[in-house]
């Protein structure tokens, strides 16, 4: 027999337990403001940021134009811009390399001046020698330019060979070879077996890009390269690998290296890495290795975009039922979403869900009621964000599609502010901006253009840096390059491949994408995980700021112009350790890289003085 006292005790305990479990569920349900986009920040003056960017861009262009005249007098220009100017030595201002250098200069807030010859520059004072000369080695008349470059380097200029001169040119040009630290041109064109990337050059892990267990189907690097053997005074960042282990490491081909020459430093990059936009990281990395420290602005945003996300209507359900025994809506709800969440739980990514309520607007299948609410609720719990996608399989106009989507949005979540959109084609942005005026940023597939930029009007464009379906060796180099230069990645997974599969099944898609995202982005875990709207704000702030830095003894100072609440910088320290930072919070990204979360326009970083434990 249970006594009354015990009975009531048990009853109260049961009630408490039921209340505790139910209450949290009820609270979640009732307090979830899924109908509004919490990412639509109040107080972020996007227009103002754009204006500041325009002013800064104009100033840099003006400075560049002014500086490009041969009459160089420091007093005429803003000292910082004068010191930060980048000389590009090449044949064509519109070449791929010139474009990459141009993008890099824009991101680094440096005026870029293109020269076709350096001969006039050798007359300037040593103090006015440009800090950086970026050279397209294949586009220079070396008979004329060698001496000028030698003179400037000896006097302290930093030369970056965005592309090394042709091997036959180097073979006959001893002085140039000596300047570049090349001991021998072993071969003009030889196939190697892989490439080794050493740490401290890029953010992220060191890598060996060579076929081997677990690296199947990842090799896509151009392994036919000239074989340069470098000598004393060089530091190697990337080197070629051969299967033949009898080669000593010092004889293996150097691919990216630094050489000290005179008072200056020479960086050489063999291959076409700088012909693509991802080459900006190489330039940043070279600058980071030039002095005892380097500090530069970054975006600090890691996006995971699920573009063309279906699961709202039962389109294409015959095929899906054949494959998965489920129609589209339950399949996306029960399988796709679950596996996606499992992935993001491990990768800590925030989801930017760019939905496609329908792909085919000509069939009679309409989106299911409450599905959007269901997803918005889940997104709100998981710190994600929703947006729109422009992709469709039917042939109605974009405006029609967007209008139909709008109706669905209105019926499900009328107060939700849509700030991000996926564009199937980059030129759709104008129509999107017109029909969806709240959209602030658009995402496009991988292209050769700048990874982040302003489109006309007040839209930012974020280019996919990866589709997560493949992660080749070249993808890794590009990703490291982007992360080093911008602290930015934008994984755009095309979910229409799931709702409208062309080949394979979802398990393969899920395994590949999850594996890639979880494995290869782990090395960049120091950067912030963002949604598209969040990264949009960071991009705008990144574009709007200008900065000055300097070092006096153990103190590095940073001053930011155009600072707006928050900014991010990467600090690269080559021989010091940080003691104290004021005006920013710091995250160690390893290998000498630190991420500064700046909260004040003036930042002071004190580095440790070398003290021994036993003195």
């Amino acid at each position: 027999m249970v006594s009354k006292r015990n009975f009531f005790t048990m009853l109260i305990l049961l009630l408490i337990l039921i209340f505790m479990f139910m209450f949290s569920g009820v609270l979640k349900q009732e307090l979830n403001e899924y109908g509004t986009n919490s990412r639509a920040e109040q107080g972020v003056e996007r227009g103002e940021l754009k204006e500041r960017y325009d002013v800064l861009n104009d100033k840099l262009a003006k400075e560049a134009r002014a500086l490009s005249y041969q009459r160089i007098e420091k007093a005429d220009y803003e000292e910082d811009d004068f010191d930060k100017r980048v000389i590009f030595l090449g044949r064509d201002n519109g070449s791929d390399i010139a474009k990459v250098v141009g993008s890099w200069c824009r991101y680094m807030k440096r005026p870029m001046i293109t020269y076709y010859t350096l001969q006039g520059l050798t007359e300037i004072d040593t103090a006015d020698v440009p800090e950086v000369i970026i050279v397209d080695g294949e586009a220079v008349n070396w008979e004329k330019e060698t001496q000028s470059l030698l003179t400037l380097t000896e006097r302290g200029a930093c030369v970056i060979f965005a592309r090394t001169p042709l091997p036959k040119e180097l073979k006959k040009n001893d002085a140039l070879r000596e300047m570049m630290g090349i001991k021998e041109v072993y071969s003009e064109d030889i196939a190697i077996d892989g490439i080794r990337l050493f740490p401290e050059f890029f953010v992220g892990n060191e890598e060996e890009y060579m076929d081997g267990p677990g690296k199947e189907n990842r090799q896509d690097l151009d392994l036919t390269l000239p074989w340069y053997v470098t000598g004393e005074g060089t530091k190697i960042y990337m080197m070629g690998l051969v299967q033949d282990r009898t080669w000593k490491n010092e004889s293996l081909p150097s691919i990216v290296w630094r050489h000290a020459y005179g008072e200056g430093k020479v960086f050489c990059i063999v291959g076409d890495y700088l012909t693509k936009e991802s080459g900006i990281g190489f330039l940043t990395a070279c600058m980071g290795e030039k002095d005892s420290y380097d500090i530069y602005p970054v975006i600090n945003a890691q996006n995971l975009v699920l573009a063309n996300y279906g699961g709202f209507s039962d389109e294409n359900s015959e095929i899906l039922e054949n494959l998965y025994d489920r129609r589209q809506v339950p399949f996306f709800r029960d399988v796709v979403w679950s596996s996606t969440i499992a992935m993001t739980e491990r990768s800590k990514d925030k989801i930017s869900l760019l939905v496609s309520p329908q792909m085919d607007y000509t069939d009679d299948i309409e989106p299911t009621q409450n599905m959007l609410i269901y997803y918005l609720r889940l997104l709100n719990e998981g710190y994600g964000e929703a947006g729109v996608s422009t992709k469709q399989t039917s042939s109605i106009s974009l405006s029609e599609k967007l209008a139909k989507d709008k109706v669905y949005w209105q019926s499900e979540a009328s107060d939700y502010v849509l700030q991000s959109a996926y564009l199937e084609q980059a030129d759709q942005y104008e129509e999107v901006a017109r029909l969806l005026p709240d959209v602030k940023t658009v995402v496009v597939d991988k292209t050769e253009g700048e990874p982040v930029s302003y489109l006309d009007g007040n839209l930012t464009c974020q280019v996919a840096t990866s589709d997560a379906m493949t992660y080749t060796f070249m993808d890794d180099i590009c990703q490291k390059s982007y992360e080093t230069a911008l602290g930015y990645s934008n994984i755009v997974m095309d979910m229409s491949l799931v709702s409208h599969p062309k080949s394979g099944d979802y398990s393969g898609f899920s395994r590949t994408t999850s594996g890639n995202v979880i494995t290869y982005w782990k090395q960049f875990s120091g950067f912030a995980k963002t949604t598209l709207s969040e990264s949009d704000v960071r991009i705008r702030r990144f574009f709007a700021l200008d900065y000055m830095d300097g070092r006096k003894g153990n103190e590095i100072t940073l001053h930011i112009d155009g600072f707006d609440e928050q900014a991010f910088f990467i600090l690269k320290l080559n021989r010091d350790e940080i003691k104290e930072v004021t005006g920013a919070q710091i995250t160690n990204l390893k290998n000498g890289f630190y991420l500064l979360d700046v909260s004040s326009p003036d930042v002071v970083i004190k580095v440790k003085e070398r003290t021994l434990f036993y003195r």
Partner: protein
Amino acid sequence: MSMQLLTLLQLLLIIALYLFVIVLIPAAVFHSKFEDHPFYVRYTAYACIGNFYVMNLVFVLQLLHVSNRVTLILGIAIPALLGIAAFHWQDWVKSTLVTAGETTHNVIVNTMGIRLFFARIFQNLGQALMAMFRAIAENISNKWLDWIGTLGIIALVCWEYGGNLFKTYGYTASDMLVHNYWVNAMGKNDLFVAGVYPYGFHCIIYFFHAVFGIETFVLLRLFSLIMTFLIHFMLLFFLRLVCKTESVAYIITGFYILLNIWGKNAYFRYYGALPQEYGMIFILPALFFLILFLREREEEHGEKGYRTRSTTMLKLFAMCVAMTLAAHFYDTIALGIFCIAVAIAFCAVIFKKDIFRRILIAGSMGLLVAILPMALALMTGSKLEGSLRWGMSVMQGKVDDENQSVTAELNQSNISNEVTPGVTGETTSVTEQGGSQPSGEVTNVQGTNNGVTSQAQTAAKPQKVHFFKMLKTYLSGYVFISPKSSFGLITLLLIAFGFVVGAFALFRGEAEQGRVTLAAAINLCFLCLILMSKELGVPALMDKNRVSSYFAYFLMILLGMVIDRLLELGMSFFEGEVIQKVFPVIFTVICFVFLGLVGWVRMPERMEAFQKNGAILCVTNILRENKPYTFNIVSANDELRMIEEYGYHVEASDLLVRNKSWNVDSYYVIPSQKVYVFIEKIPSEYDEPYEGSGKPISRESASKPLPTGTGIDMYKGEKRHVIMSKLYYWAQAFSKMYENEMSVYYEDDEFVCYEIRQNVDRPYDMSFDYGYNE
């Protein structure tokens, strides 16, 4: 943490561990055997047993090639536990085990709670501690004069010899690097790595390194103070044994430490941990136990058999004989000479069949135990180590071990210049392979030359001089502070007076005191003969400079005996217990006050080391900061052996030779994550003074051709200056190319250490044109 504090902590740790292993463990085992004896006998016995056991344990394990931390610990722990059980089974071991068993049973069957169990343990521990403190307090109150005296001697040794350890971090003798190498080799069970040599000292150092993980170079840096303590304690204990007036032992030991009359030969070697000084610890204990044996034997009245109390003393005598030979041949020679003196003085006692046979057997056994490992090694094909051949050649007169100055002194009737001998060491040099080789030259230990003048070299032709005048000059020059002083004459007079005092004591019926006094005087006569061996045309058993340290040490025994006899004689005129007790104390105080007033107190000296303080500081920090074998040190070969078990070393000369042969195609790498470059901005002259000694490195010096040679010879005198100058400019040029990758790790006025960080998969080319390649 300051290096001084670290040194202090390391020193305290080494002393504590040494006392634990060498004194406390034997004390725990053999306490019952010596409990009737006074403290100084007990301590000496335990120390001898401990040293002997550890030394021979290491020898056995090394010869079996199974020496490592585990075997060494087991080799100590098992016999110690068995010994404790065997000697104290009935006393307390059995009862303790029974109690422990019962308590455990009670805990298991739950008749005793855990709380009570621990309460009992703590209660017992507390009681044991209280008993110990009570015993100490009682001992202090009973023997406060002894405590004051002993603490006074400890303080004086610390003051005189300890301070240098905190000012000079490097090795104060050149051959310590070789000893370091030999000890390192023992870590690979490679005994006698450079040839057969008395390894007793090395066994002790190796033991503490292997068991407790203390770096060998730290032990070698600091062990000298422990040795110096022991040497002085043995003098103190010996005098306590043979003198009737207790305070004489303290006066004499104090005088030995403080008197400002000694030449540097007499004491400078106490600043370094060297085998000879380690063996010196056991010379007086051997005589100590020999005298105790004679005493005990006399009390046994010819008792037959060997299970007698006197046999224990004889065993300890044998151990001491073994340890002198195991540590250094010179110590055995010095002991042998003293034993002969004792035999002469004690002839009436010793040359009885029963006693003489026992002593002979014990001595022979001792020698056999020490010779056995060396003989085994020789039989298995090892050769004699270079310095032994040097020792032999000194004996054969092939190497002139004396300074010319003394000869010059004898060649002139009017001594106008100060003539003092330099101090010679063994002719060992670290070779490139790390071995030692006889170089045929006599190496002066830095800072020990007392001012040998060139006058000696001008002496054209040796002339005949009076024997005693020559002896007096030798004594003054080698043992005492100056050849011009009259200490030589005073010493000769003291020896003569010693004979008189000894004879008088015998006449008064104080047989043992008289004989010891005579033995001390005879022993000094023998040492005088060794000093004069060349002039007498007899083989020199020892290098004269080494004789001087023994001479000074043994002279104090004669002085002690003479003072003791005189005090005894003086006090015999007074009656009353108070005067008998108080007078020696007053006399002691007067002696030390007098010493202070007349200014005969030797102030502590700063001995120069062969390595810069900065270098040792950097080695200490580098070992702390880096994982084993992830770094290289580029330096002269001083650090080679210090870091051998922890990292890699590249000789500066190797680096410079690779740079000398630099051409466009050459490539030289030092493949480790970190490379430390040690540069002496003011290079040590390393025992080879030259024109411009003590000057900073210079471009002029760097322009000179790279010296040639091997081993440490490459880094002596001006050669070192040239190498350091070149290395400095090499580092400057490297730093220009790799300003981010190379930084100053440490710098002071005399030394700089650079740190190079590199990628081991693609290390930097360390050969290049730095401007002084040729």
